């Protein structure tokens, strides 16, 4: 048997960033399951648009503050939901299976890659998944709601929001300890955020105390910022700062969580 060199270390190095392998692996999944992902990303936004937008949308006009069209309100909300649900869930599910089920996450932790790079890689993977879903929804919206005018601040907001949701997904993924935890996260965190964050119903129409509480959720400033940019009301820097702040806080918590897992 011919024996390849087993010791001596690797000399030549590549210049790809240390988080790149996580993204590369994500792309392999995309390649193998692209049509499944496409169908998944289209289904729930289409249901929201058809049922809320074109179904009960006209009747919901009365709840809109300032006489805004409900469809105009709903479109950025559905985009925000696509970014949130796919960005968070894709990372959470991947981390759940690789950490607790297949244990392949250990391969990353055994590599000479810092915890920071691992968190960043997973965040970017989640952000990419969210962005892909958001763009697919936008294409659908163009077909269903003609006359929509997109602008660069809107795309910038999509990018910022998807990064924020990627960090959220990493934090949840690193906190999961069992399959039951995953169900609890879905029921007690993701579903309430989905419905209460000004995506389908205006925040102003929520019960009094909730109107303030929902601003503590990262989806609320994301949906609101997408709405203000899409309706041409300019880029609200204060909302962008809140979203950016959330990203930093969630990323730091995820990073700390990974350090704790080292123990």
């Amino acid at each position, binding site marked *: 048997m*011919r*024996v390849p060199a087993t*010791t001596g*270390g690797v000399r030549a190095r590549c210049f790809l960033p240390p988080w*790149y*392998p996580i993204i590369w692996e994500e792309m392999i999944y995309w390649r193998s399951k692209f049509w499944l992902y496409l169908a998944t990303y289209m289904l729930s936004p289409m249901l929201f648009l058809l049922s809320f937008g074109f179904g009960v949308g006209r009747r919901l006009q009365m709840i809109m503050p300032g006489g805004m069209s409900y469809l105009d309100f709903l479109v950025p909300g559905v985009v925000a939901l696509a970014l949130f649900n796919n960005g968070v869930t894709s990372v959470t599910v991947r981390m759940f299976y690789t950490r607790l089920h297949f244990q392949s996450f*250990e391969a990353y932790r*055994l*590599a000479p890659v810092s915890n920071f790079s691992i968190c960043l890689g997973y965040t970017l993977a989640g952000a990419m998944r969210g962005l892909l879903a958001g763009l697919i929804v936008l294409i659908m919206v163009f077909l269903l709601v003609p006359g929509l005018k997109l602008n660069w601040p809107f795309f910038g907001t999509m990018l910022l929001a998807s990064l924020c949701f990627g960090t959220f997904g990493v934090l949840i993924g690193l906190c999961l300890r069992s399959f039951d935890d995953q169900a609890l996260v879905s029921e007690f965190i993701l579903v309430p955020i989905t419905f209460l964050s000004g995506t389908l119903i205006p925040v102003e129409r929520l019960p009094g105390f909730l109107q303030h509480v929902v601003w503590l959720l990262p989806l609320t400033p994301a949906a609101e910022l997408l709405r203000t940019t899409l309706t041409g009301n300019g880029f609200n820097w204060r909302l962008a700062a809140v979203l950016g702040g959330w990203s930093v806080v969630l990323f730091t918590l995820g990073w700390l969580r990974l350090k704790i897992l080292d123990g």
Partner: protein
Amino acid sequence: MKGAGADTCVQEQPAVMIKLKDVVKNYGRITAVAGVSFQVLQGEIFGLLGPNGAGKTTTIRMLTTLTRPTAGELYVAGYPVATCPVEVKKRIGVVPQQNNLERELTGRENLLLHALLHRMSRVERERRIEELLDYVGLSSRADERVQHYSGGMARRLLIARALLHCPPILFLDEPTIGLDPQTRRKIWDLIQLMNRDGMTVLLTTHYIEEADSLCHRVGIIDHGRLIALGTPAELKERLGNYCVEFLNEQGTERHFFATRSEAKAYAQSKECDTVVRRTSLEDVFVELTGREARELASVQKVIYR
């Protein structure tokens, strides 16, 4: 050796590739490792033997940076594990007990992922992947998804992955668990070939035959403590090189003697059927850990020195 508190990555003398000093690991009130100390020298195959739950895997996890020790000092390739984990990771290959390959990826993609994580150049990673697929006999199945691999194929791919970045130290946690005898022997050959090339190997196993035939030195660990350390021959000699074994009403009884003539004389004094044989590492293991006695109360052992 430099203190564990050192925050600079200064390499220690390379002859000692692995060093543990009074290492303790507690999980709450449970002590998994209770003050283990030993060294592994360059080019050695060192086996950590012990029953299930003895602390072998925890020791490997601490050495490979996956778990932090509660107390004590660990050095790998001269680097303190606590303060230079990245330097340690560059110099180790790890074959875990459980298959932790990415099932959705092919064998080749799994190796490519590892090469990217170790930041190998394109030319080098392509060359090494082909070399190692050939080495472990997986070239023809390299483009199949790992979920379709048998246990033996997955284990060989894990070894190829661990060797991809040419580490000087290899950790194998139960490398042949659950494999058929042919595959097990093939993996033993791989380990010996790697060692012949200068690689230092630390493996855990509870297959005594594996440790006896592969390891230059063996450490026996039980209840988180290292209870014996030496070459297989030394450990057998300490117990007595010859064993007389016979069955009585209470079960199998074994007696150990320094010389064959002593053993034969004792065997002849018995009225029942006896077997005189060389002491095996399994005898040493069972005697030291008392596992057999704990689990099968019928067994009696008497040692004559």
